[in-house]
Structures are given as structure tokens and as C-alpha cells.
């Protein structure tokens, strides 16, 4: 059976800020309205809505998808909220794709929102409850533990130093200086700054971590016929993949994200990508922590295991390198309103592949990009591949 094609035709976003005045609904509305305006559509053109948002405990509303529906443009419309933890923002690619590719809808509005500042006193406390309620929570874990444990295992397994990894934070924060949505911060930090920043949970230090933020991002996805009506520059969904590993995260090899590889292989297969290192021109891997970008580049098969830091050191992943990674500035640079940050990666590919990324534009004429996010207890891989060429 030939597949019904889908394309991204519009995108919009709010600024990412530490603490927003706007309510979650209002943030969603701003992003959704900008996305519609960017392709000359109105809400009346929208057939269905997909919402992505991370734990309800952040915004502080149970059944958050229901609460966000009006701000997301879902009044009177079919709407579903998907949820795969931190992987949700990029999972909106697959979710929007299957809405369109099913043949049920022609124009789908896709909205990701997070307001982490509502949680008091600090959003990180909401993460206590991601751990198993009976066998882990009594140990009073915090979110940093699981990253620190994974980062340490990764470094130990491959003999990687903190210095190797810190370059990711430097690169992404510098890239973000060109992003109009980026949180105000120091754009020009050095590796020494990262290494001398406050130790939170060794080996994780303050500047290894992306800042919690509020914000929203939206894109518009359309069927082939609708996309051609809407724009002469559709950016096609060429491949999607997702994968969820076991909940027993301590029973797993933390040095390598196999779930990311499985999600990537699913997306590559659909996109007909056989040599990802040649065929992926821009990559937006998930970078809530600097080592995660390396980890994910390896899971995506864009670097050999344990060798991603070398790509960073060699300048391969710079915006001007041969495989630009996080040209947006990523979560480390722009900010990390969880699902909104994930969908920002898809929006970035959309702008880059249309040559509309302004000061962030990667040189040449990139034809294909990949966005990836991760989530849960080191277990979710989500991948969306966009390209300028219409899929076969």
C-alpha cells in the first residue's frame, strides 16, 4: 500500500523564559497562532489537534491535555495528547504523521507546551515521582541521580573525560545566541567555565545542564494535497520512529541508548536512509545535559560508540561543520521547557531546510535533517526525519 505523505508547512514559538507571565493556555495559543499565521491558515482550516506536554505536575493541572485544549486550538475538534516523557516533543512528529497518513485528516495543528515555573519551589522536585514508588522513591532520589549515573557509566565505559563533554555545552550556548527565543544567558562560556561550575551530582555540574523554562512551540502538518495548496516549500516527513525500553533501568547498559538506535533504525528504514552519516545533513539530538548529545549521536548511528566527543572536538558538529548538531542552540542554549524544547527541534529543521533560519542558517543547502528526543527512565527514543525531497 502506498503511504499517504505528510509535510510540515508552518511553525511558530514563544520565547523560552525562566518564569512566564502567560498561563499555559496563553503560551500555547501564542505558539499555535504564530504557526498558523506562518502558513496563512486560520483555525477554521485545522481538522485535528495534537498536544504534547510533559508531567502534569509541572503546569500543576491534572489531565493537562484537557486543560490545554482551548489554547491549542481544539475547540470542537478532535484532539489527543500523547505522552512519552521527555521524548514527547519529538514524538509529536510521529503522532502528527499518523494523524495525516491515516487519511483521516488533512491539516493537523501540533502544539507543545510546558510551564515548569508553576511548580514550587522548584520544578526538579516533581521528578521524585518518576522513580518506582515502592523500590526507589523511599531512597529520595532526585532527577540528577539518573543522569549522573548514566553519564558516569558512559564516561567510564569509553574513557571519556568531562573536558571532552563540556565542549557540547559551549557549542550549544554559543549557537543559541542567534536564537530569538533563547533564554538570556552567557553565550560565550568556555570549557573551563563548565568544569569550574558548581558540582550538582558528580559528574554533572551546573553548566552541563539545560535550564528549566516556560514556553510553547507549534507546527502545522498537512497531507500532500493540502501542503501543496498551502506552500510551495513543504518540508516532508520522511521518517518517524519511536521506541520504549524496559522500566527496569538498573537492569540495562547505561553506556549506550539502545532504544534510540531502535527508534532511529525505524525512522531510517521508513526514510530510505542507508548511510545516515552521509544522508543526514543537520541533526538536532536531545541535549538536556551535554553528555546526552554525545550519547544520542551514537545511538542515532551518527558517531561510533564512545566517539561522539571526538566529533565535537573536531568541529564536525559546529554549525559550520560537516554535520551540524543542535544549530538551534538546543536545550542547553535556548532553554528546556521539556516538550516544547523537543518540538523546537522539529521546528528548527523546518526553518533550516527552508533556508529561513536567519543567523542560525547552516551553510550549503541541507536537504535532510533529523530531530531526536529522549525520555522516561533512560528508556524512550523518538525520532523525526524531515527533508525537502518528497518521499517515494
Amino acid at each position, binding site marked *: 500500500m502506498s503511504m499517504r505523505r505528510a509535510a510540515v508547512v508552518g511553525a511558530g514559538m514563544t520565547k523560552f523564559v525562566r518564569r512566564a507571565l502567560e498561563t499555559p493556555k496563553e503560551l500555547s495559543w501564542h505558539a499555535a497562532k504564530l504557526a498558523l499565521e506562518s502558513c496563512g491558515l486560520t483555525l477554521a482550516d485545522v481538522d485535528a489537534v495534537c498536544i504534547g506536554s510533559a508531567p502534569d505536575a509541572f503546569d500543576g493541572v491534572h489531565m493537562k491535555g484537557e486543560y490545554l485544549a482551548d489554547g491549542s486550538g481544539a475547540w470542537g475538534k478532535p484532539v489527543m495528547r500523547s505522552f512519552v516523557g521527555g521524548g514527547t516533543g519529538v514524538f509529536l512528529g510521529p503522532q502528527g504523521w499518523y494523524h495525516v497518513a*491515516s487519511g483521516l485528516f488533512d491539516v493537523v495543528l501540533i502544539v507543545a507546551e510546558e510551564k515548569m515555573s508553576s511548580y514550587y519551589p522548584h520544578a526538579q522536585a516533581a521528578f521524585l515521582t518518576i522513580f518506582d514508588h515502592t523500590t526507589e522513591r523511599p531512597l529520595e532520589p532526585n532527577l540528577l541521580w539518573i543522569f549522573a549515573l548514566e553519564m558516569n557509566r558512559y564516561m567510564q565505559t569509553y574513557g571519556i573525560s568531562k573536558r571532552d563533554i563540556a565542549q557540547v555545552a559551549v557549542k550549544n550556548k554559543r549557537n543559541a545566541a542567534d536564537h530569538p527565543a533563547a533564554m538570556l544567558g552567557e553565550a560565550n562560556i568556555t570549557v573551563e567555565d563548565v568544569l569550574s561550575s558548581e558540582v550538582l551530582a558528580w559528574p554533572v555540574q551546573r553548566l552541563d545542564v539545560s535550564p528549566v523554562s516556560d514556553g510553547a512551540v507549534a507546527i502545522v502538518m498537512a497531507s500532500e494535497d493540502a501542503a501543496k495548496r498551502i506552500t510551495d516549500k513543504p518540508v516532508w516527513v520522511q521518517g518517524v520512529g519511536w521506541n520504549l525500553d524496559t522500566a527496569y533501568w538498573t537492569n540495562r547498559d547505561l553506556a549506550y541508548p539502545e532504544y534510540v538506535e531502535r527508534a532511529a533504525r525505524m525512522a531510517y528504514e521508513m526514510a530510505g536512509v542507508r548511510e545516515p552519516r552521509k544522508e543526514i545533513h543537520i541533526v538536532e539530538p536531545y541535549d538536556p545535559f551535554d553528555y546526552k548529545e554525545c550519547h544520542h549521536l551514537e545511538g542515532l548511528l551518527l558517531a561510533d560508540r564512545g566517539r561522539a566527543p571526538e566529533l565535537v572536538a573536531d568541529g564536525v558538529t559546529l554549525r559550520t561543520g560537516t554535520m551540524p548538531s543542535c544549530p538551534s542552540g538546543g536545550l542547553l542554549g535556548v532553554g528546556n521547557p521539556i516538550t516544547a524544547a523537543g518540538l523546537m527541534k522539529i521546528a528548527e529543521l523546518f526553518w533550516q531546510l527552508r533556508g529561513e533560519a536567519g543567523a542560525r542558517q547552516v551553510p550549503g543547502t541541507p536537504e535532510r535533517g533529523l530531530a531526536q528526543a529522549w525520555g522516561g527512565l533512560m528508556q524512550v527514543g523518538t525520532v523525526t526525519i524531515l527533508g525537502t525531497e518528497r518521499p517515494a
Partner: protein
Amino acid sequence: MTSRVAVVGVGWTGFRPVSPEASYKELMYEAATRAYADAGINPRADVDSFVTVAEDFHEGTSIFDEYVPDQLGAAQRPMHTITGDGLHGLAAAVMQVLTGRFRIVVVEGHSKASNILTLPEITAYAMDPVLNRPLNAHPIAVAALEADRYLHETGTTRAHCAAVVAKNRRNALGNPAAAYGAEVGVEQVLGAEAVASPLSRLEISDHADGAIVMVLADAEAARRLSPHPVWIHGVGWANDSPTLESRSWGRAVYAERAAAMAYRMAGIDDPAAAIHFAEVDDTYAFKELQHLEALGLCGRGQAGPMTADGATGPRGRLPVNVSGGSLGGGHLLDAAGLARALEVVLQLRGQAGPRQLRGVTTGVAQSWRGVPTTSGAVAVLSSAPNGRVP
């Protein structure tokens, strides 16, 4: 059009007021094992994608999605959560099959409602934090206001609502999976303790624990796997305004729109003629009536009198909630809609035991996500493979 997706396996465990011998994982594992045995599949080899429905605050875990794959056979497989009702999950699975890239997709929903110690506070936490929550009201107030408005606009009486309770609790006596089967009279319902006028204690469904798993397949796999595939002719889902301020209070607009979408997909112009029986949301007794009207199975204000006359009873012309519904079966939180679809599947397969309806080929399942939402979903299921019902 010819239907391209069918239910080829169902499994469930429960439904019971409490389930202290099993963890949520063990409940889900049992339901999944039954569903895979029913479909004759190995989840580790044969399933292309898994969908679950859950809400973090019903589980007591943030990012509950994490804890789902193992007990469904979904570890290292495509799997995701929809924070919706089970029928939303079913619709997500249908869409995946319709893309042509997924042959077999599994949907799961469950309830461990007995493990939630503060459900009213948690439900209230779904209300607008600025405009509504400061009133510090039990969320049943929202349902009561809807009921007040619905009775006012349609002329439906409390006795009509009580007849729903009597019917569904009695129907549940014929369903071994139902938690709350009983002979309850209309007078007993009307005389029960007032909770939030016009709702009495007996008009409000109690929760139950349980898990439901369904295996969906494309047409080719369905014919290969199942001697009695149940075809999904249409799915629909929709929201009205989420705000208390600007929603419709008398009509279930979400159900009207969801039904319109599902009927359009199924090619149904006259639902009252095409649909032989219905499993609809009855979280509160009046909701069954309001939802029957929204589904176009009777005119506005007619569902109450029809129910009082027995037309929606098991031997009536439009049997409704033969399973016992949520009032008789127990409300399964996010799995509530899957419980409705489960009964439709069993009836269409002729496997409903003592409550089996005669001569039915097409049924509808409908769900609502409960207060304070305006979110609903509909599925039209049939034992006939052709989309247009004869």
C-alpha cells in the same frame, strides 16, 4: 468503504472494587496474556506498535509511560501513551494501522482506582487553577450543574435517571466481570442520600479496578488471525471548550461531534437505524441519557422516557449498557471507554453469555473523560466487514 481495521483479540481482568493481591503491572500482564492468547499472537514477535492510556495523577507516578512496556511485552518496541480515554487509545491504534505501516497494534487501559486515596482532590486539580479551584468545591458539583441544566432543557426527570440506575445495576447481574450488580428500584435511587442536587448517591458510579487489552489488526491479518474479527467501521473524538465558563452545559457537544466523525467514517446516515445496541458512558445516570441523544440514537429529551418504558433494556429495541455500564460494572477511570468497547466486541462475537443479544451486527461504544472535561470518543463496531451497514 471497506473496513481496514478489526479487533482480533480481547483480554481483561477484573472488574472489582479492590484488587490487593495484584500490582498494577500484574493486572495488566494478566489482561495482556489473555488478549494475546485470544488473538493467537506472540507480543514479542507479532506486534508492531503498542498504545496505552493513562494519566499520571491516576497512577501516582510522573511520566507513568515509563512503567508500561514490560508487562505488555512492549519493551524495546514502538510504544506510547495517549493521556485520554481508552477509546482515544483505540483511535490512535486505528490511525496507525490505517497508515499501512503497522499491521498489528495493541491498546491497553487499566484502573487501580482503589489505590488512589484522594481522588476528589485529584479530580479537582484538573479544574482551572485561577478561576475555579479557589472555590474549593468537590468536583461532583460540575456534574450536578450539568445534570440540573440537562434536566431543565430537556424535561427529563429524576425518575428517568433512576430508571437508568435500576437497569444498569440489574444488567450487571448478567455480567461476571461487573463489580456492582444489584437489584435496585427506582424509588430506592430517588430516596438515596443527596450528594449534589439533583444527583443522589446511587446515580453516581463507583470505581473499580481492572485492565483491558485489545489487539487490532489490518484486514489481511485480521482474516488470518480471527474466526470472528470485529471491524472498526468508524472512530471519532472531540472536545467542547475545556473551560467551565464557555462550554455547553445542557448538551454533550463533545459526544455529538465525536459521533458525527465516527458515523461519517462508517458511512452511517441514520444511526438510529444502523446501530443495534449501544454501550455509552454512564458515569452519572443522566449522562447515559444525554449521551444517547448526542449519539443521535433518539431525539433530544426522548432518552429518559425510552428508558422508563424499557426500550433501552436488554429486550428493548435499543439495548443500552447490557454490560451494566459503569454504574453496574464499576468505573474504570481511563479504561472506561475500553470497557464499553469490550462489551460491544463480545456481543458481536456472540460471546456475551447469559446477556447475549440476538441478531445484532453493529454496535456503538462511547466514552466521556468525566468531570471537569468535555472530552469524548466514539467507536462504531460491526461483525460485517463492509463499511456501509446493510
